[in-house]
């Protein structure tokens, strides 16, 4: 589905996407970017937020912004914007509360009917999410970008890190994620 040549009929796609852009620059490239990165963006945002709908919304918003301001270095740009959106949102405590509520409901619903394997999987998902939440923002984001196949230089651009710092960041993030995950399990097992 990845588009090859950029066509050149951007006029056909001037977006009024999300109620924002109406006129503006040609956006063929955005359509192309969309095909290339949308899925990856949604996955990253889902991993980051734990809410699929929300991830889709945020991804949508990212492309709306790309329509408004065509980025020069699109890949890191798109993901940086996505992560910024999540961060900004994190500051809005009210919404955060709502999201937690939503996640809680999700699990509760599942517990009623799900088979053991599914419950286990769901438990693991929550543990991973908790471990991920224990990381620093920068470590977490580096990890998520790497999981989307980003190279170090791309991660550096997206997160505003020095190129040489990415390896160290990832090393720390990976270790912390794994160790936190196991630590949580230990605590849980003791509690049982």
């Amino acid at each position, binding site marked *: 589905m990845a588009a090859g040549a950029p066509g050149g009929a951007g006029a056909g796609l001037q977006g009024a996407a999300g109620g924002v852009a109406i006129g503006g620059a040609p956006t063929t490239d955005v359509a192309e970017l969309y095909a290339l990165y949308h899925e990856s963006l949604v996955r990253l945002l889902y991993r980051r937020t734990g809410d*699929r709908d929300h991830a889709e919304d945020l991804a949508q918003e990212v492309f709306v912004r790309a329509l408004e301001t065509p980025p020069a270095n699109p890949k890191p740009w798109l993901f940086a914007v996505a992560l910024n959106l999540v961060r900004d949102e994190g500051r809005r405590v009210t919404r955060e509360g709502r999201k937690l509520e939503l996640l809680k409901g999700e699990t509760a619903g599942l517990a009623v009917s799900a088979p053991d394997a599914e419950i286990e999987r769901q438990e693991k998902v929550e543990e991973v999410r908790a471990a991920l939440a224990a990381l620093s923002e920068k470590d977490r984001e580096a990890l998520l970008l790497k999981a989307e196949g980003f190279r170090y230089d791309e991660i550096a651009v997206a997160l505003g890190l020095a190129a040489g710092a990415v390896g160290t960041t990832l090393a720390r993030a990976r270790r912390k994620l794994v160790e936190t995950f196991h630590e949580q399990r230990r605590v849980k097992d003791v509690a049982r």
Partner: protein
Amino acid sequence: MSNDGSRMSHVDDGTLNALLDGELTAEEAAAVEAHIAACPECAKRLAEAKRFLAEATDLLGALELPKPAVAEPSARRVPKTAREIALDLDGATQQSPAIRPNLAGEPPKRASVGPPTRRRLDFTTLAWAATVVLAIGVGYLANEVRHTRQTIALGEGAVGRPVQSPEQASPAVATQPAAPTPPPNAVAPPTSTGARRGQPTRGAQAKSVLAAGGAPATAAELAHKETPALRDKQLAAAVPSDQAAAQPRPGRAAKTLETVGGVGGAAERPTTAVVAAEPPAVLMGADRNAAAPIQRGAVAAFAEQRLTSFRRAALEEAVARLGGSLRLIDGMRIDHVEVGPGSRVSGAARNLDVVRIVYVDDQGRRVVLDQQRLAQPADSSAAERQGADVGMGYGDTLTTEAPDGQVRVRWVDRERFWLSLTASLAPDTARALVGRVR
């Protein structure tokens, strides 16, 4: 990081990870490997780094997107939304066929009623349906909205679309009581969305995206992961089925018909005829004829995604979604109306539908007026949630300017309509337009 600083001669964890991630140049890698071969400590740490990498990758892999079929979150949120809307609004909404299909517990029934009502139809019938839409639209608006000039403009739009393309208009068929063709698309699930899928081929549809800016449902869309979007479409497409369902469930449905009859002067409202003939919102501002060289795959993907968010609607559906009234810009000609989820519009309440009215001014500039009707403060939970999304209240006005000259003005009016006006106009001109919204 327990292991740098004091061991300058050793390879640090960052470099080990870079090595594992294939980020070192050949020479760097060779040097590091040479050191590791001679240094048991670094070899041990490399093994450790390898383990952390593998395990971290595995852990993140556990956070895979939920499979479409079990997209729990989506499935859950939409019914809630509809119920909230029904509660939030003044009662008329509850009776609206456009809203009712989303109420929890009903979908199965509707789904079973849906498919038989959606049939292929020829051009003449489409024209007929369009005419009915026009007539009803005019009647409805004259009675209810009292903006005659705009009504006529909308009516023209409504007629225009179905006639343009049989593909786009085919959902109008749904309004035909006696068309017995079986559901044409074998892939289509037995839901009321099936109607829009009775479309020819993927290719033909891609073409129609490009040629007309309208993207009918495609096979890809069928398989699309987004449950709420599908439901959203059902919501629109299920209107006729709903009427069919009026008999078994006389209570609310009967009321619906009464209301409809009273307002529009016709019991059979082929609302969806126009509703379903939607263009993807992303193409809204576009020259719909200029898309030929665009990469098909990319555009189709993009457009389909958009399709799942905003779609065209008859003004009367918009009115229904807002609980019986609507804000319009006085003296401007409506180009078309769309409806979509609030989650797709920045600054809007996420759990409420947005009605989007697109105007074109004398000089062909587009002005977009988005609106939602927020819950009354008395319904504190809904109002609070929406307030958190919207971040403003009555009396607040927020004007933002995009680099490309787009001006967006957002405000909440006395009756708790959330409004957003976007246009390529000078801020003052935009604000002047705001003054004409009523």
